[in-house]
């Protein structure tokens, strides 16, 4: 069997696209399982769904309302 490749792609001004990973460990040490073929990992820290990107980098306001 061929070795699976994990590829990380930088999106300027946006997230990291990750293909082939099994889990992403967040800053609090929690491992989030990867459940889709490609995932977008937040780079700006503003996401409400860390470690995943939720497009908050587009939102001008810093605080999100509940």
């Amino acid at each position, binding site marked *: 069997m061929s070795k699976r490749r994990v590829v990380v792609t930088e999106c300027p001004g*946006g997230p990291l696209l990750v293909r082939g990973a099994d889990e992403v460990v967040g800053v609090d040490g929690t491992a989030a399982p990867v459940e889709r073929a490609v995932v977008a990992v937040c780079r700006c820290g503003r996401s409400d769904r860390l470690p995943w990107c939720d497009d908050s980098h587009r939102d001008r306001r810093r605080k999100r309302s509940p």
Partner: protein
Amino acid sequence: MRLPQPCGPLSEGVVETLRARPQGLHAVPEPRAMGDVTYPLTDRDLQLALWVLYELHYRGFDDVDDPRAEWDPLLMVSRAALERTFEHAVRELVGATPQDAPALEDLGDTPAEQVTAALVRMTARSGPSEVAQFLHRRATRQEFCSYLAERAVHHLRESDPQSFVLPRIGGAAKVALAELQYDEYGGGRPDRLHQALFARGLASLDLPTDLASYVEQATGATLASVNLMSLFALNRRLRGAAMGHLAAFEATSSLPCDRILRGARRLRLPEEVADYYDEHVEADAVHEQLAIRGICAALVADEPELAPDVVFGATACLAVDGLAGQVLLDGWRARREDRAAG
């Protein structure tokens, strides 16, 4: 699914023709003088006629006996006439959209850079739409359900139009589109098929899950927003526009889906409704990158002459979907005023 109730001479021509002729060539329906159509983008009769003709290429109708109707040359003639009027109106709307963007050639050195910059720029300023903000903060349960019913025409067929584009493009763009579609189609899990997630949301509210129920009540503008995807996807010459449309749609989806999700929770709607929007916050943040950088940039690197079409498709998406959103907001406002007055 059964043929919808026609609502004017154009849709009546198409529906009656499909119903009447069991076999053989279908007569061209008596065209309503296209001069009668004052605004094709909200004309329900024209959009319904076109929607019925497009549906022959998707799942079709149980009460159309002739399986060859899909490629009936005379129905094709009808479709082409309706499409011409529709496409002309879309181009006029796009032309009338204020453009403060620099010319494509000033946005980068290569067509791929130019198109990427143009798509990022035109979608950057869009926060959550007014519709999403209304659903988040103000909508009643009934208004929220009316939104789901209106959008069902799109979501119960979600991603199907774009699948027609796969054989029409090549290389890295094809690979990226396949990757995006795989996610839309559940990533190997039938229970995560996005169309099915939406249907589960409808079912949890005891709403019907068949498309026909919703086509009957959809506005002309909503049908136009769905027909636009078929127009772009079923005409190979418009493949660039189809992919630009997809990029603009995905890039303006995550934030609104997050608001709609919060609205569903505020109204304490069943978790199945929230699940659809929850899935789309994360999925569309990925799809946006795939569509802009994976598909559109690669497509114009391969076929540079498609760059203006990609930008046109994206602008058309924002303009036509914006129009459909405005019609929804106007409807909610009018009904609230009626209730206040009554």
